């Protein structure tokens, strides 16, 4: 999480230019609509895939599609594509700690009874 410490001494010792500043740009309704349609298509796809027996691939596909949908929402509906690096790093930090919670806790459960997982 040691983020944002990449400071700007070299070319901007006074920190006048806010290094975390982002352009303010708008996403057009057309772009929103495209994302919306994509989200609906993915929803349809994940429901469809759930009715086919693909063995171990079923959960993988379902969660993979969910991740894509989540990323689409974050990037476009939540404007993260046009956000500053700070915001992007913040989100990454959040998911990283979430990941730590899951994996480190799992390390106990998985190794409590080897092979039963």
């Amino acid at each position, binding site marked *: 999480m040691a983020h944002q410490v990449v400071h700007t001494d070299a070319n901007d010792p006074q920190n006048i230019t806010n290094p975390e500043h982002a352009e303010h740009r708008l996403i057009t309704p057309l772009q*929103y609509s495209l*994302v*919306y349609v994509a989200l609906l298509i993915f929803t349809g796809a994940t*429901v469809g895939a759930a009715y086919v027996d693909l063995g171990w691939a079923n959960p993988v596909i379902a969660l993979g599609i*969910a991740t894509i949908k989540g990323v689409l*929402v974050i990037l476009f509906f939540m404007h993260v594509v046009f956000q500053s690096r*700070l915001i992007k790093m913040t989100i990454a930090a959040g998911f990283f700690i979430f990941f730590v919670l*899951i994996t480190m806790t799992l390390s106990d459960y998985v190794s409590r009874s080897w092979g039963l997982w």
Partner: protein
Amino acid sequence: MDNAITSTGMTTDPTLYPPYTPAVHEEHEHAVLPQHRHHFETEEQQREAGSFGMWLFLLTEIMFFGGMFFAYLLYRNWYYEAFVVASNQLSVPLGAVNTAILITSGFCMALGVWAAEVRQKGLLVVMLLLTTFFGFIFLGVKADEYHEKYEKHHIPGASFSTAMFVNPAAYGLKEDPLSPDMAQKTQIFFFLYFAMTGMHALHMIIGIGILAWLTLRAHRGDFTSGYVAPIENFGLYWHFVDIVWIFLFPLLYLINRHPLK
């Protein structure tokens, strides 16, 4: 850079000004809007601080739901059979429709933010109303699903019944019966189902409350004269709630339909 600091004409050479001279600060040289809080140098700074703060708040939400996601992961692995049959009691069509409804609500919210940005008051109000409307439909479908669980005695607690899982044939289900011991574990599935969707619904109810207030203010024209932050930040919250559902839907409804034998 529309940062007020640059307007003081400072150069980047620190030796050029005497130690600790306060900047010749042109107090508010650009047009000041009433919502501008004076402890921020510029409105840009205020706006960015606002959305950064909102994102940090959403991180806490991720971690809050994270605890339950982990519990789900753990117990699904421990009590796989129970989770499979219990999960099959959820209606995929209802879940799918609800997903679409929520995405639509989020889409309207996104358009609402756009309307505020381009200062179209009427459109903004309509979009906020549509967002609320789809939010209500989602909650309605959810309530219907909860009601069905109630009728089947699938609400964890004293009246919870495992009959359907111990003796599926009697209920016209094709699934293999579970041992009474494993059938008990379906209660954990249903608890997590209610905890996660309930917490999600609670977030939506709070969101709808805020939406009502925002709609009133939008109607007054508060957000269509350049002051978009409340709409934008509420949008972040609303989309985050969407994302939680986007993951809850496959986890609870979809991934258990074809059990590995």
